[in-house]
């Protein structure tokens, strides 16, 4: 039992930055930001290549290098995606799809192949302890507290205001482009961190790592909303509880014993039940604005 719990906690800690980033962009900014898939892969690629070429001797230095480069990589993807939206005027759904397409080629060029193995480099997150779990739990706690504090700052509140009422900013002379691009950059930087953690724990980077991540993030956020049932506009517990529930369900379904070809279908059925439960009574309450994105 403890082993199962440990497996689920490890998976949660690896994907927590990604879901927090998706929470910032889908739930707070209400921008359908699919470019987290590209940021996930690109962050993993940049940090893997940095670790290979810089070859740090100390674990702490290795962690710092990997995190810095994955954040920079993710930020770059987010910056492009946000700039296409705000400066050119394309709706964000389309500009994030275009970014995925652009980075499909950029990733192949930078990586120079299909698979890149990390196992012949030092594993910095093991910290000479022999297991990666302590670092993962530590990073998850740090990220949770940082995002909790972030949502209390001016910028965090402005992200939520953007989702609530985009025309708010023009009246008070607040730069909407700044808020939006900053939000998308942060979301994609977190996706990059998650990409690095996934690559380090699996041992290799693959071009198609990010495919399907947006859907799983949305699923996790929906599960989080159903389970926390909060009425506040921003709540850092939603992504945390949601990711944990997602991996608990995944782990439980693997153990049930049906033919795992149908895994995706059963998972989608569970999400449908959760959604039906959440949306059952929404239309009745006149104070709840109908939310087009729904995440």
């Amino acid at each position, binding site marked *: 039992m403890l082993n199962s719990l440990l497996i689920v906690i490890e998976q949660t800690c690896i994907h927590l930055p990604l879901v927090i980033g998706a929470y910032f962009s889908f739930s707070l900014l209400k921008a359908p930001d699919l470019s987290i898939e590209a940021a996930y892969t690109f962050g993993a690629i940049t940090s893997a290549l940095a670790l290979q070429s810089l070859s740090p001797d100390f674990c702490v230095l290795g962690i710092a290098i990997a995190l810095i480069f994955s954040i920079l990589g993710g930020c770059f993807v987010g910056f492009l995606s946000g700039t296409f939206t705000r400066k050119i005027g394309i709706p964000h759904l389309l500009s994030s799809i275009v970014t995925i397409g652009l980075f499909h080629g950029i990733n192949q060029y930078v990586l120079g192949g299909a698979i890149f193995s990390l196992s012949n480099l030092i594993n910095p997150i093991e910290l000479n302890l022999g297991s990666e779990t302590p670092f993962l739990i530590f990073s998850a706690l740090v990220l949770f507290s940082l995002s909790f504090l972030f949502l*209390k*700052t*001016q*910028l965090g509140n402005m992200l*939520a205001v953007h989702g609530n009422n985009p025309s*708010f900013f023009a009246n008070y002379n607040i*730069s909407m482009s700044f*808020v939006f691009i900053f939000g998308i950059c942060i979301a994609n930087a977190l996706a990059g961190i998650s990409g690095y953690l996934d690559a380090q724990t699996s041992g290799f980077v693959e071009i198609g790592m990010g495919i399907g991540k947006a859907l799983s993030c949305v699923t996790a956020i929906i599960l989080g909303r159903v389970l926390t049932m909060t009425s506040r*506009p921003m709540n850092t517990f939603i992504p945390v509880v949601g990711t944990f529930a997602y991996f608990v369900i995944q782990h439980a379904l693997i153990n049930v014993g049906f033919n795992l070809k149908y895994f995706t279908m059963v998972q989608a059925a569970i999400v449908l039940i959760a959604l039906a439960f959440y949306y059952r009574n929404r239309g009745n309450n006149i104070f709840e*604005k109908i939310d087009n994105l729904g995440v």
Partner: protein
Amino acid sequence: MLKLNNVNFKFDKSGACFFNNLSASFNRGKINFIQGANGSGKSTLFRILQGKLSSNEFLKGDFCLDEKYDNISHRIAMVQQKFDVMLADKFSFSENLKFANISRYPSLKFLPNHKDVEEFLKQFSIDKNKTVNLLSGGQRQILAILMVLQKMPKVLLLDEPTSALDVENSKMVMDFINDLVKTTNIIVIMICHDKELVESYCNSEYYHLGHDLISDGRFIEVKKI
């Protein structure tokens, strides 16, 4: 005192003059009402005062605030007719006031404090911690005005603040604006169509914005009630 002198305005650089040598002055200590038929140029006048012109439009004239400032657009604040657009629905009253204090590029610091207006809130029975979408129309209108006032403008423009409100809420908002004019140093200019409302406030100046058939421009004149 806000003075406009010989203002010329055209919607299209090659077209006819919309405001032709318009002059007016607005004083402190009283509510300045502007009244005029639909299409006479009230909202356009507000837009000019704020400085929001599009590229085709042509403006020439003298604007003077308190005999010293020439660049007046950032000392002027406006509350639109649709005041809901200016509020963040899901947040509380006090949070909205804090948001109004944020500068052009929000920083990573915690939310700034807002200037407390406890006495107003008690008077209008507004709960500071309730979310804004649960407040009544008049209370939200007051919130919009308070938010705009956080940056301490010298001139406050109100575009038909009471047109969407019922009698009781209208009275509440007008009382609030009246208090504001008496206690602070702000010049308040308000567009209003309701004659009875205008007439019930003695300390006010009543301007009429009309169409001059002879010169084909607009004029403003002070009308005594």
